[in-house]
């Protein structure tokens, strides 16, 4: 029987959730027996190669590319998981949600104390995805089936969740595994 596929991505996140996934230590060998990784930074597959059972999304949406990737995940995954606080509530990137975009750019590229920008350029290449007015939690953009809170969620949380889903059970986290920090 073909193994179910798992895809992962990091949108507006810090890769901490992915590091936490690697933190399952030797259980990763067991995981590889249970699933194949599809589109994911873990194996560097850039495009979906087939339908995935589970999609794990780290980070919220801060630019248009994040939105496209998230929509692509929704289209290609049976179960989509918001993994970590950034995916769930925007997290640290969402701290800019009450600051006008212009002010954010000015601080980042012109006025900030460590900025070196002799030509005073604000990056505006066509290749760069446009920044959204706000950072959006994933479930504000597409339907998310599960939320695993934490910054990052612990390796045990991720393991419990994956094992439950791969054995066709709903995710039921015990008290110690629901944490927001």
């Amino acid at each position, binding site marked *: 029987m073909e193994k179910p596929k798992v895809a992962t991505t990091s949108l507006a996140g810090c890769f901490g959730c992915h590091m936490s996934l690697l933190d399952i230590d030797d259980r990763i060998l067991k995981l590889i027996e249970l699933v194949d990784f599809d589109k994911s930074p873990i194996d560097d597959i850039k495009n979906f190669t087939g339908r995935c059972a589970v999609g794990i999304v780290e980070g919220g949406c801060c630019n248009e590319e994040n939105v496209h990737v998230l929509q692509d995940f929704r289209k290609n995954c049976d179960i989509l998981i918001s993994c970590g606080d950034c995916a769930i509530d925007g997290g640290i990137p969402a701290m800019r949600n009450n600051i006008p975009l212009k002010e954010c750019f000015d601080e980042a590229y012109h006025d900030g104390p460590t900025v070196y920008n002799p030509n005073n350029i604000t990056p505006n290449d066509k290749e760069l995805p446009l920044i959204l007015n706000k950072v959006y939690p994933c479930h504000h953009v597409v339907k998310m089936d599960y939320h695993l809170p934490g910054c990052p969620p612990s390796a045990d949380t991720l393991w419990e969740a994956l094992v439950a889903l791969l054995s066709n059970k709903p995710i039921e*986290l015990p008290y110690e595994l629901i944490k927001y*920090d």
Partner: protein
Amino acid sequence: MDKTITFKIDGVDVKGFPGQTIMEAADAAGVYIPRLCYLKDLTPHGSCRVCTIKVDGRAQAACTQPIAEGVEVENNTAELNEKRRDIIDMFFVEGNHFCMFCEKSGNCELQAMAYRLGICAPKYPFQFPDCSLDATHPDLFIDRNRCILCGRCVNASKVIDEKSVFEFVGRGAAKKIAVNADTLAGTNMAVSDKAAGVCPVGAIIKKRVGFEVPVGKRLYDTEPIGSDIEAKQ
């Protein structure tokens, strides 16, 4: 304490004495009723409604409702816990609660209540309100992003400290906590005041003591909020 009053919570007999609220009698009996704005020693504010119970079928706030002979109280029911979850969800989306760097995380009563009720994410859309932070005071700061308008600081400052440093201003969604000067530094607030230590969330924070307790050893890391009361049983 001349007369005992007997009533039921979730079918179990609880005894109390005249003048006690349902919350007080339940606490003494080791029955935990979830709450947020209530704090022992302060005047009950009755504002958060997390302690909503049913008394003979009618919804009441346990922290303000006096006990009465023979009444049947519902507390730990699926329906009431669902409503409590809704309230907690609303608190989370109506503020900016960045637990990952909050000094209060692990000791926060709002967060702990969400943990106890098993909330992985609030069901309502986040509002990302625009709130201010006042760090002018040498020993304290107030971060309104985290305030849940429980009224504890208002009451403690007025009744216990006799200073009235805090008061609510505005109404409805515009309601917020204010201080009786331009900034917190302009008030006579002291870090030793009762009001400095009653905030259930990280809105009023003492400076230079953040993150003192390591992760794993904080109040609600391993035991749900209310476990101390339930242990009395």
